């Protein structure tokens, strides 16, 4: 049911862990639904220099976190803001329809981490003015 890419990122997840004194931290989901994603960002000169995650969830939730952190490392904040869950799904060679919400969680967790960064530094990040964490459905 999962692509080889999904299985690879689930079995050998990249960027697992936490960043001490992270510049931005984002946590979405809740244990009731069975997924929680927490993303840590290290940001220097508007560039994501490091990203790490911790996730409670199914195979696709872990793979989405792994892939999403891979996709944003080295990218500018602007580039990351325009990153959608679609990009995560495509990079994973697709997710089963019922699991697409996992990629939404990854996108949202990153955006919440960026908002956290903006708040801590009194910044406005273009494109995130109206951002709201989505109610996700399975």
């Amino acid at each position, binding site marked *: 049911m999962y692509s080889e890419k999904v299985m690879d990122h689930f079995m050998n997840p990249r960027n697992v862990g936490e960043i001490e004194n992270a510049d931005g931290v984002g946590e979405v989901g809740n244990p009731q639904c069975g997924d929680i994603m927490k993303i840590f960002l290290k940001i220097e000169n508007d560039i994501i220099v490091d990203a790490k995650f911790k996730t409670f969830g*199914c195979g696709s939730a872990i793979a989405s976190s792994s892939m999403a952190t891979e996709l944003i490392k080295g990218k500018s904040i602007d580039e990351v803001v325009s990153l959608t869950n679609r990009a995560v799904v495509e990079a994973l060679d697709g997710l089963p329809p019922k699991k697409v919400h996992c990629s939404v969680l990854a996108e949202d967790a990153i955006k919440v981490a960026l908002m956290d960064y903006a708040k801590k530094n009194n910044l406005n990040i273009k494109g995130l003015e109206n951002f709201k964490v989505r109610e996700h459905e399975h």
Partner: protein
Amino acid sequence: MMGDDVLKRNVYLDYSATTPVKKEVFEAMVPYYTENFGNPSSIYRYGREAKSVVDKSREIIAGTINASTNEIYFCAGGSEADNWALKGIAEANANKGKHIITSKIEHHAVLHSCEYLETRGFEVTYLDVDEYGMVDLNDLKNAIRKDTILISIMYVNNEVGTVQPIAEIGKIAKENGIYFHTDAVQSYGHIKIDVEKLGVDLMTISSHKIYGPKGVGALYIRKGTKINQFIHGGAQERSMRAGTENLAAIAGFGKAASIADETLDEHRTRLIALRDKMINEISSRIGHVKLNGHPTERHPGNVNFCFEFIEGESLLLLLDNQGIAASSGSACTSGSLDPSHVLMALGLPHEIAHGSLRLTIGDFTTEEDVDYTVEKLVGIVEKLREISPLH
């Protein structure tokens, strides 16, 4: 996370989902596909040979549960037998009353049949269970009404393995003149069943949980029970369930039932030893775990744990990667938002229920399989907890 694949084994631990067909069973089936393939309704030799194996299987199965041969009705499996029992009794007895009592932890074949009957004007009481999955007999007594026509309580729960007090329920049903059906799919072949001692009027059994083929099961219907026929057509199964018999499958079911009956004691002793070893090792080697189901009143091969801070599907995928086949009641494996209705009925919080794992042991499970599984499980749980933000 891949671990050491050098010593990888294939370990099947989902015997409550289905069992392999035993070699002797398969061999007993083959002639009824190739040589004695006749239609049991035909008058000539081919038909008579076919009919004789159907009769023989019926006799064997009746003997294993202390029933008469004319109380055993073959059908396509457990789900069909459950549907037949519920709908057949409801329709035939609607003039007496329209109330049915069941439990919250029944198989979907019973629950969804009840939901269907609710759309046809029947009322259903779904009894709660305690934290071990046990129905309370006082709750049952209190739920009985003048218009109650049927009680349907499963013998052994398929997920957590809890064994219900069927004989006591049978007694209550009899005292109140109410038909009693039990889904015995998970107990037949694992617990000695005597329909007289249990006081059941209808009982569902299935072949593919006892090392027989899929696609065949039976409904025991006590003589004199008022029930509607399920499939209209020919005169098969005393005109109650029409359709040409699934001959080879019935031959296999009979063989499997006879082996299960003859080897019941050793089967139980062996499984219970492996089960308890697995339960003890998981409990002692992994922290933050909870055994689901009843500590003693339990299916001989059922091991079911919740592992805190991790999710069941991840667990299954990593176990599969090590060659271990198991199942889970997590939402991601059930395909819905909620974890299984059974775990919810036990009162587990959602986040704990998401981390459930069912390992069911059978006749081909070895001690090495148990050791290997526990060993791999320890590492997998640790790895997933390292990834988890809850830990």
